[in-house]
């Protein structure tokens, strides 16, 4: 059963309180972020229905928003998602090579997840870090000035972190 913990329900209340009475629909995007983070990194239809019930919306109002924004994942993704920018300024600084290198290293193509469910490689469009290219988003943060060595280090860092958690 998909439900927020009491702590996350408090966070939900805080998000809704940013808007005037009766405008709780405005909290939909922030609440979807919270739900995605809480329920495995993606939005299943159960999760979206739960969000709809919390905000007193029709489920379709949630689906149409979840499908519009690129940060919402509509199918399961790896524990670590490498979102590598490929737009002009990053391309000028070698993002194509970085994407190819990550793909080769992990044995997957953009859009795919490794068989062990650890890594997803995703190409994304401009993330506003053009001066620090090439770059990717990993979780909440940016990893910038990427090189092959840095990519190796990031993969090792994720693997170690995951091993510690197990």
């Amino acid at each position, binding site marked *: 059963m998909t439900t927020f913990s009491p702590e996350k329900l408090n966070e939900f209340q805080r998000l809704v309180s940013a808007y*005037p009475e009766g405008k709780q629909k405005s909290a939909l995007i922030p609440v979807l972020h919270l739900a995605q983070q809480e329920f495995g990194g993606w939005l299943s239809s159960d999760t979206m229905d739960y969000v709809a019930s919390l905000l007193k919306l029709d489920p379709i109002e949630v689906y149409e928003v979840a499908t519009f924004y690129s940060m919402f994942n509509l199918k399961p993704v790896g524990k670590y998602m490498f979102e590598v920018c490929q737009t002009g300024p990053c391309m000028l600084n070698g993002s194509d090579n970085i994407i190819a290198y990550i793909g080769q290293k992990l044995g997957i193509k953009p859009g795919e997840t490794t068989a062990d469910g650890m890594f997803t490689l995703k190409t994304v469009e401009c993330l506003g870090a053009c001066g620090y290219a090439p770059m990717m988003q990993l979780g909440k943060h940016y990893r910038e000035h990427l090189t092959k060595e840095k990519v190796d280090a990031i993969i090792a860092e994720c693997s170690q972190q995951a091993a510690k958690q197990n």
Partner: protein
Amino acid sequence: MGRKLLLDKAHVENIRQYDVYRQNGGYRSVEKALKSMSPDAVTEEVKKSGLRGRGGAGFPTGMKWSFLAKPEGVPRYLVVNADESEPGTFKDRYLMEFIPHLLIEGMIVASFALGSTRSYIYIRGEYAWIVGILEQAIAEARQNGWLGKNILGSGFDCDIYVQRGAGAYICGEETALLESLEGKRGNPRIKPPFPAVKGLWDCPTVVNNVETISAVVPIINEGGDEYAKIGVGRSTGTKLISACGNIKKPGVYEIDMTISVEEFIYSDEYCGGIANGKRLKACIPGGSSVPILPANLLLKTAKGEKRIMNYESLSDGGFATGSMMGSGGFIVLDEDQCVVRHTYTLARFYRHESCGQCSPCREGTGWMEKILWNLESGKGKSSDIDLLWDIQRKIEGNTICPLGDAAAWPVAAAIRHFRDEFEWHVTNAAESQTRNFGLAHYANELPVAPASV
């Protein structure tokens, strides 16, 4: 060394913290505005300053504020557009990440001027870690009496909230942003009505860029007339430029709008020249949507005058031989870069970001991407270049919002100035897969037109 009004304190240690910011003169503009000025007087100073919107369109900010409808009993809103997504642009991120209190301070003054008691920052979803930085700054401002009820005993109440987007370039368009803030898909609205009359939740709303609102702080501190003395003509004050691409020192620079493009690229104070000892081929001076210029047209206008880093000079010559200041996203291409490939990545970007509402944009952006990919991968035909030209013409001006124009212009300018390079991809298809067209003649001196023309 130009004057710095926004980044002058950016390198003070711990300036992100309230105490340090306050000790360095922070929140003086709020004291001045709330204790000694009326809301209309604040708007008047902003008008006098000549400040123009720093998000890309360059519309005069004071005028935008004075258009705000003020019907009795209806709330009004200030919404800060922090959805910075234009490729090449990363200046607002810098402001919010390193000097968050500057934006909060500017928002309080602007909210006072506009009568907004509930103001929002709509920040792009990917800037996830900055949300916490802003919320911390807001909490500190509230603890110190700059937000909340009856601020400084003025009777003015104000609170600021941050909302995260979720990955959509289109939400930088102000009406799409408002839709998104209302919890909907980011489909731009048909205008009129403009947000100044019917904006957030159908109430009068002003949407301003982060840098614009930050600039209100020095304007109130120093006065609109003083601010207007910096710069030249209708390009007053300072502008943040985010420089990237093939330069030695990418980063965010604050310029006063009197320096030349050449100085900006080559001086050590700014970009430090082209990286790896290469030569300049081309540049997109104002974010990916504005026309790309070859080196020769970038450094000098078609009239042979030095091109200056300001609104008027960058657009000198119109789209035939000029470009735009746009958002200040300055993208530099060196001699080894391929204009066709670069244009292809931009076309792919716009296809990805089109909201899909208007068919010319929805269909046209995908069509342009495919044709550009064919040309880039050696499968193009000569007629493809004319077809591309034709498609972009049919998108421009035929959509609800400016995303259509923004998608059309980079393609048009690339063909206009680099047609030889596109044709070379067709006639030398195999060779184009192993080497680039190079600098060619794009840096050669232009023949100067007679003065009478």
